[in-house]
């Protein structure tokens, strides 16, 4: 269905090719997963399938890309639209119309389908993706999962035979992600659609894939193979595979179900062992307390009667569906957004009443788009500005950055940093003023595993240094790794507030893979299991 024939892609302003000598054959009706680090050329590979590279992006493409026999060199993306449907990373950025129904029809209008066929297909698509209830709704008002499903539906209604998706679940809560993946699987199984999908969250998708393509980046050769085979040695792997490697399982299980079958002996080994917990400073000094906090957007209440407390040195994860009020809560904690009711006190001060300069001494927020905070043309300049804003010793921010991300150079333009590096830079800018409370909104969206590991380490260090940290996230694996406490929000109310293991163990939605595999034992991460196994031979020695 899709053939890459010795393809080399070089962008106009770069000397080295993004992809070099790529040879791929993707047969019809397969679900193919494309993995690789941020900036490795995954998106380029995907965009080459419908000719957006090089028709839209510029640059040169050597070799040949054949899609169902059509050469992308001679066919513009619009001429491949009946064959290839592309769902962009941020669905909102690709929406052309205002409402769900119009958006579903748009592609078909462009292809010139007859009105009666369009009517029928819109109805079919609404049913297939479960969008019938929201057909009249303006796209803007949809939740992340709904938007993603609309974006898929909008492409699907035109009946393309190939579907290309760039990180379809990265912005979604676990429930919405499963919805989207279930819809995709149905397409592959029932309609024989070929799906090509890039995704960082392997734990969510690898079990569904028929094939995995690894794009190592830097022009290194692309690897294609069956998931089990590729996952044995892949540099990036979901927890289930890491656990499998640790336990030496063969064949490598890819789903929780397969892993549970293989895990009997591991569970026996671990009987009587206790997971090691992160040492939490026991100060119990309150950093922030809210009481009866409420926020409304127009007539829609986004938060209702929220009472939470966070202590110094604690890492708290805010979880919940898209639109449950996580971001609104973080915004209210820094005193931005619509007027609130109730009280917020950070170290006995109300953030909304603080002056601009005082605010950053009290609380720092890394927003969902960290790049919003960047304004200078070089990293060094950015750090200088942060020093000045925070009224601290010149060089403080730069030193902090050197500690967190030593590889970032002074002269680099912030835009040229990778997503993870940019996040760390913004984190440093915020930390310059040493706010006792640090907030992060969806910090791991679009981050690959190595970057995530690094972020987790940085956050743990900051908590150890006494910062209280709250992060809103959908990433259950990250939460299992670093959070001391989890607060779950639903419809603007707190529905659960307790220690990480208590809250996530009891929830099928928020439990990490390791917990699912080893339940009823209470393990959360591969690290805990590894640590416990290492102590096994001499149980009496080396308790630290």
């Amino acid at each position, binding site marked *: 269905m899709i053939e890459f024939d010795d393809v080399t892609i070089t962008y106009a302003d770069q000397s080295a090719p993004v992809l070099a000598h790529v040879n791929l054959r993707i047969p019809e009706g397969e679900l193919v997963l494309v993995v690789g680090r941020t900036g490795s050329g995954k998106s380029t590979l995907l965009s080459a399938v419908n000719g957006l590279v090089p028709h839209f992006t510029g640059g040169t493409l050597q070799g040949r890309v054949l899609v169902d026999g059509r050469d992308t060199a001679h066919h513009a993306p619009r001429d491949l639209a009946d064959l290839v449907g592309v769902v962009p990373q941020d669905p909102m950025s690709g929406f052309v119309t205002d409402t769900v129904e119009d958006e579903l029809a748009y592609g078909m209008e462009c292809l*010139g389908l007859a009105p009666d066929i369009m009517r029928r297909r819109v109805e079919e698509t609404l049913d297939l993706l479960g969008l019938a209830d929201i057909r009249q709704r303006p796209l803007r008002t949809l939740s992340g999962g709904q938007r993603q499903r609309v974006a898929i539906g909008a492409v699907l209604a035109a009946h393309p035979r190939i579907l290309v998706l760039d990180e379809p679940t990265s912005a979604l809560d676990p429930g919405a992600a499963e919805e989207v993946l279930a819809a995709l699987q149905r397409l592959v199984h029932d309609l024989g659609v070929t799906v090509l999908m890039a995704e960082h969250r392997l734990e969510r998708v690898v079990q569904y894939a028929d094939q995995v393509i690894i794009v190592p980046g830097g022009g290194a050769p692309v690897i294609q193979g069956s998931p089990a085979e590729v996952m044995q040695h892949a540099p990036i792997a979901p927890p289930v595979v890491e656990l499998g490697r640790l336990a030496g399982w063969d064949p490598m299980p890819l789903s929780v179900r397969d892993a549970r079958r293989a895990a009997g002996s591991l569970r026996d080994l671990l009987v009587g062992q206790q997971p090691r917990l992160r040492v939490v400073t026991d100060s119990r000094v309150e950093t922030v307390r809210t009481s009866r906090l409420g926020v409304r957007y127009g007539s829609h209440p986004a938060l209702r009667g929220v009472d939470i407390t966070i202590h110094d040195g604690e890492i708290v994860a805010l979880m919940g569906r898209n639109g449950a009020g996580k971001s609104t809560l973080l915004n209210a904690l820094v005193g931005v957004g619509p007027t609130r009711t109730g009280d917020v006190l950070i170290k006995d001060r109300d953030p909304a009443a603080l002056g601009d300069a005082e605010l950053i001494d009290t609380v720092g927020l890394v927003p969902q788009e960290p790049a919003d*905070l960047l304004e200078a043309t070089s990293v060094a300049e950015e750090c200088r500005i942060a020093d000045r804003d*925070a009224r601290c010793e010149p060089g403080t921010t730069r030193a902090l950055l050197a500690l967190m991300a030593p590889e970032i150079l002074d002269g680099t333009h912030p835009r040229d940093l990778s997503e993870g590096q940019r996040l760390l830079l913004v984190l440093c800018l915020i930390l310059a003023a040493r706010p006792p409370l640090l907030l992060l909104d969806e910090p791991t969206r679009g981050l690959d595993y190595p970057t995530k590991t690094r972020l987790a380490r940085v956050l743990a260090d900051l908590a150890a240094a006494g910062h209280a940290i709250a992060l809103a996230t959908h990433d259950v694996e990250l939460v299992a790794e670093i959070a001391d406490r989890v607060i779950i929000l639903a419809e603007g109310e707190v529905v659960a507030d307790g220690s990480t293991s208590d809250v996530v163990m009891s929830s099928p939605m928020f439990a990490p893979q390791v917990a699912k595999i080893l339940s009823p034992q209470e393990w959360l991460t591969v690290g805990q299991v590894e640590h416990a196994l290492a102590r096994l031979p001499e149980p009496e020695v080396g308790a630290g």
Partner: protein
Amino acid sequence: MGEARWLHPGAWWIWALGMAAAASRTTNPLLLIALIAVAALVVHARRPDAPWGRSFRFFLQLGLIVIVVRMAVQVLLVSSVGTTTILDLPGITLPEWLAGIRIGGDVRLESLLMGFYDGLRLATILICIGAANSLASPTRLLKSVPAGLYELGVSIVVALTFTPQLVADVERLKTARRLRGRRTTGPRAIAAAAIPVLEGALERSVTLAAAMDSRGYGRRGPESARRRRGTTGLLLLGLVAACIGTYGLVSAGSPALMGLPLLVLGLGSAVGAVVWSGRSQVRTRYRPDPWSLPEWLVSAAGVTVAGIFTVAAWSGMSGMVASFDPPTWPSLPLAALIGVAIAATAAVTAPPLPRSMRMQRELVEVGA
């Protein structure tokens, strides 16, 4: 009136352009303020809860700036009318070889009024356009634009999403500035936000254009390349002819043939080109917005107000031109008032929006 649905965006534009045309025919401040009030009333009643629906306020502010700038220019540069001095500023007259322009000098009431009336007229025209912007869904309007012009179509969609997104971006960056402990108001804050905002908007525009292309926007039938060149050529020629024709029409002393006939010929061939290239398009419409009674009523209201004002101005009806020398309180011509009232009926004759698109928060945005 009638069931809840979207009014055809073309009807809103006809109505708003009619209002703007009416405004351009008068300098009577009372009539102009009445037109602004009608625009505000209709926007308030029928604008959707969407990014572009909120843009009206910005047009009001823009109108205010236009008035102030126009008055300042009048007073500081061309202060030559009237006798009632209300403020004595030092002034210099530039030498003869610099056209003898006067800078500064006496501020006279008549001159101020003249600037105000003229500025108000310009502001009203802008606000009427702003009303259309806020009432008519740009994406729905695009559905009605002939699809024959691929590049034009893409640029229109991109441009239309540009402004509302820009406004949203400014808000986001204001938040971002607060997070870094900066002032969020004042000229420096705005200047600092300008570049990232423009960058973001440009990036999004490119993404949107790519998405439209990926979904097949602008696909053509087979024998298109030659035809496309033909239509593009015809369109260009037509537009050039229309431009020359317009020039011939408005400038005295050009040959009669250069006026109206050339304009008609030019416009004709441009329209022909669009229609012809539209034929090779494969595009179809999904549930197009109907053009029925409400559309007729709304656009008729706009055309009527334009017609009444034009005739009134042409026949020299008193009160259409406000007198500033001597400054007198303007009278209100009844016929024009009736026209304004007819324009206001759009607030009622247009069908209400679907419930999900109605404005949630009732913001009071009246007054310029």
